[in-house]
Structure formats: structure tokens, C-alpha cells
């Protein structure tokens, strides 16, 4: 059966990569809408919420596009995939831009990486940019066919620190151990970019497109 998949476009970052990758894994008759129209988002069968850039700009863009309600409603009612800033803005508060109020779906903070060094004593660069391992902290349908400790592509300087430990579905080490994946009911969100993570990323997106939570 054909599905509609909305990729939320609020002007933050390059959505072509995301929509191309979804297209690549979706069924031929699935419809993909890259859209900022709240109605299309509410009507879609599943929703992808990407995002790049600074927290304050993202929140301003969400509000300017009047997407607050549509995002929160989709996040609590249908298969929903947050990516990068699309994960971070679901928390309550970010340290970025001298402190930014976020959407507040999940209690917790978004924090800047502390200065730290690797085992050889080299200073860890910020942003974390590149391929790092994800520990699958619990089974989840979106991990289907993906080995534990698989590497995914990350680009970020901030990470989420949720108050509810049961939200965590994956962790990654970069100086500290941080939450790289959260999941609850119909929602799954990753700090890494599945659309840029080669075969493992495509597998995760395919799992999402077929997910029946």
C-alpha cells in the first residue's frame, strides 16, 4: 500500500540528502513531500524531522513556519524520525546561543561537548565530525539488520542529555558517553545522519519506512 512520507522543511539545512535517501529506500509508489505545510504533515503516514544549524535559528524557523503544533502532534501519533537538530529541539532546553528554550516534548538538556582528550592525549575536535560507533542499548525494530557498534556519520557540537533514562536507545563515546539515539512509542531520533551513513544508514531508513509501531 502506498504511503505518504513528509520531510519537514523549515529552512534549516540541506534536505535534499534526506529526501534522496528516503526516496532510495521507499517503495516506488510511496509519496515523499518535502514540505512546511502543517496540513500535509498532519495527513502524512510518517514524518521525518531533520535539521541543521544553531538551536535559536531552528526554534525561530519552526515558529515562523507555524510548525510547533504539527511537529508535536506528529511526534506523538505516527512513525516519526528526528535527525540531528530534529532530535535536539525535542528536548526542553539547550545551552546553545546563551540558552535556548526548545520544544519540550522530553525533559532534558542539550549540552556542549566538554573539552576532552583521547587515549593518546590528543584534544578532541569540536564539532565531532565523522564516523563513530553507536551502542544499541536496547532492542528496537529500527535496529533490525544493523549490528551493534556499527558506525554512523555525525556532525555536531552539542548532544542531548535526557532526564528519562528509558528514552535512550543508543549511546556513543566522544570524550564522554552521550545519548546518540532516543526512542519512545512511535518516535525514534538520532544525533547522527542516517542519510549520510552509507549502507547502515540506508538500512535504518528502510526500517523506518516499514516500521509499524
Amino acid at each position, binding site marked *: 500500500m502506498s504511503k505518504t512520507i513528509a520531510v519537514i522543511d523549515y529552512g534549516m539545512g*540541506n534536505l535534499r540528502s534526506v529526501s534522496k535517501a528516503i526516496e532510495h529506500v521507499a517503495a516506488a509508489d510511496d509519496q515523499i513531500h518535502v514540505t512546511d505545510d502543517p496540513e500535509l504533515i498532519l495527513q502524512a503516514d510518517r514524518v521525518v524531522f531533520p535539521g*541543521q544549524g544553531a538551536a535559536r535559528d531552528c526554534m525561530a524557523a519552526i515558529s515562523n513556519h507555524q510548525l510547533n503544533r504539527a511537529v508535536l502532534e506528529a511526534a506523538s501519533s505516527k512513525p516519526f524520525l528526528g535527525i540531528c537538530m530534529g532530535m535536539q529541539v525535542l528536548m526542553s532546553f539547550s545551552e546553545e546561543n546563551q540558552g535556548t528554550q526548545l520544544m519540550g516534548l522530553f525533559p532534558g538538556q542539550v549540552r556542549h561537548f566538554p573539552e576532552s582528550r583521547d587515549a593518546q592525549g590528543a584534544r578532541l*575536535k569540536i564539532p565531532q*565530525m565523522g564516523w563513530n560507533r553507536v551502542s544499541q542499548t536496547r532492542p528496537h525494530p529500527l535496529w533490525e539488520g544493523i549490528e551493534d557498534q556499527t558506525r554512523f556519520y555525525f556532525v555536531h557540537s552539542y548532544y542531548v542529555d535526557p532526564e528519562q533514562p528509558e528514552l535512550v536507545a543508543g549511546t556513543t563515546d566522544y570524550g564522554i558517553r552521550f545519548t546518540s539515539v532516543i526512542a519512545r512509542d512511535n518516535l525514534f531520533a538520532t544525533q547522527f545522519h542516517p542519510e549520510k*551513513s552509507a549502507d547502515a544508514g540506508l538500512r535504518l531508513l528502510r526500517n523506518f519506512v516499514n516500521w509499524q509501531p
Partner: protein
Amino acid sequence: MLAKRIIPCLDVDAGRVVKGVKFVDIRDAGDPVEVARRYNSEGADEITFLDITASSDDRETIVHVVEQVAGEVFIPLTVGGGIRTSEDVRRMLNAGADKVAINTAAVFNPEFVREATSRFGSQCIVVAIDAKRTSGEGEPAKWEIFTHGGRKPTGLDAIKWARKMVEYGAGEILLTSMDRDGTKIGFDLELTRAISDAVTVPVIASGGVGNLQHLVDGVVQGGADAVLAASIFHFAEYSIEEAKRFMAAQGVEVRL
């Protein structure tokens, strides 16, 4: 732990890969899409396209190359060469590039870097630095920024320049030693180390790779976060997978 990245670089002129690419199992080694597909299947961590098209009539071709590659290769893509305005950046990102590398335009108009990073985000702006050693034998090491393929000095100190570009928002530095570029005798490790220690953002080492040990040296001695190479991969002297296995055997963390 975060893996060190291996990035093959393709020089593209009017939509075709130049400087020769030789793979036995590739039908058309000049087709950037086919070459990118091949590097992706060998495990490249990213791919960089350097557009060296001289004629402005042919400049649009790189956009189509990026569009095609982005439609089937799902790893980060960087495009450099001729990026002079925010409109150039936007066009490349819309075509499917994840990052753009700004080189000469940053030297002539540093504010462009600030403008591009504030508009598109630091994560997608790489500043490319072409540096040449200007200190003599026995003097403390010093490198200067050069433009026009290493022919024109700018008087800018490479380390200070790298710091300034990071202050202006650059998310990554692509560092090429103009002394080593094309020599195959290895990276300028002292330069790589100096820049890597001077900035907080990741540094990609480039220029001079002739064998796999050079890649290891760039990371271990130079402190680079990623290594970029062209000819050793193009001529199929080594595959990317071989390079990664070699690095892993030397204790470098890579994605296999």
C-alpha cells in the same frame, strides 16, 4: 571512538574526472558518478570534488555531477573550486553537496566565510588553505598562504589564517601543502601538526601522499582528523579498503 577519515578527491573539469583514473572494472573512468560509486563501495568515508573548470560556460556541469552522485551515493560529499558567493554555496547544497570548500574567495574576502557560515551553518563550510613553507633552513618554521595553485604569495601566515577562519565560523580546515602537492613524498607533517594544534575544528591533511604509510603519518604524527588523497587511489595503486586495513594494522581507528 571517532574514526579517522579517508577522503578520495576527484578533480573535475567540465563534468569529467581528469588527472586519470584507472580501474579495471570501470567502464568509463572519466565519469565522476561511476568513480564516486566505486569509491563508495570500497568504503570511502567522504568524497571531495574539486571543480577545476576554467570556462564559465561549463561551470554548471559540476552541479549536475553533484546531483547525480547525491542521488545514489549516501556518504558526505564536498565540493570545492570556484565557490565565490553565497549563491554558489546555496546551489551546491541544493544539488546535494553536504559541504563546500572555500579557498581563494576566503583570502580576498574573509567576510564571505562569516556570511556563509552564518547563513548555512559551520557544519557545511570547509575553508581550504594552500600553504607553502617560507622559512629558510635553520629558521623557525613558517608557512604562508598562496593562491593561484601556489604561484601567488599573500603575505598571510598560515597558522594565524587558520585560526582566523575558525573564528569566522569554518567548520573544518582542508590543508594542502603546496610544497608537497604532487610530489608523492608524504604530507608536510610539521605544517599539519602546527595547524591541527592551532585550531579546535577538524583538519584534513592533503598534498604529497605517495604510499599508505604517509596516510598513517598524517594522522599519527601530523594529528590530522582526516586524510585526502587523489592519485594513489585513482591509479588503483591501492584501494581505499587496503588503505584502511593498513591504517588499522598500525593502530589507527578507521571505519572498516
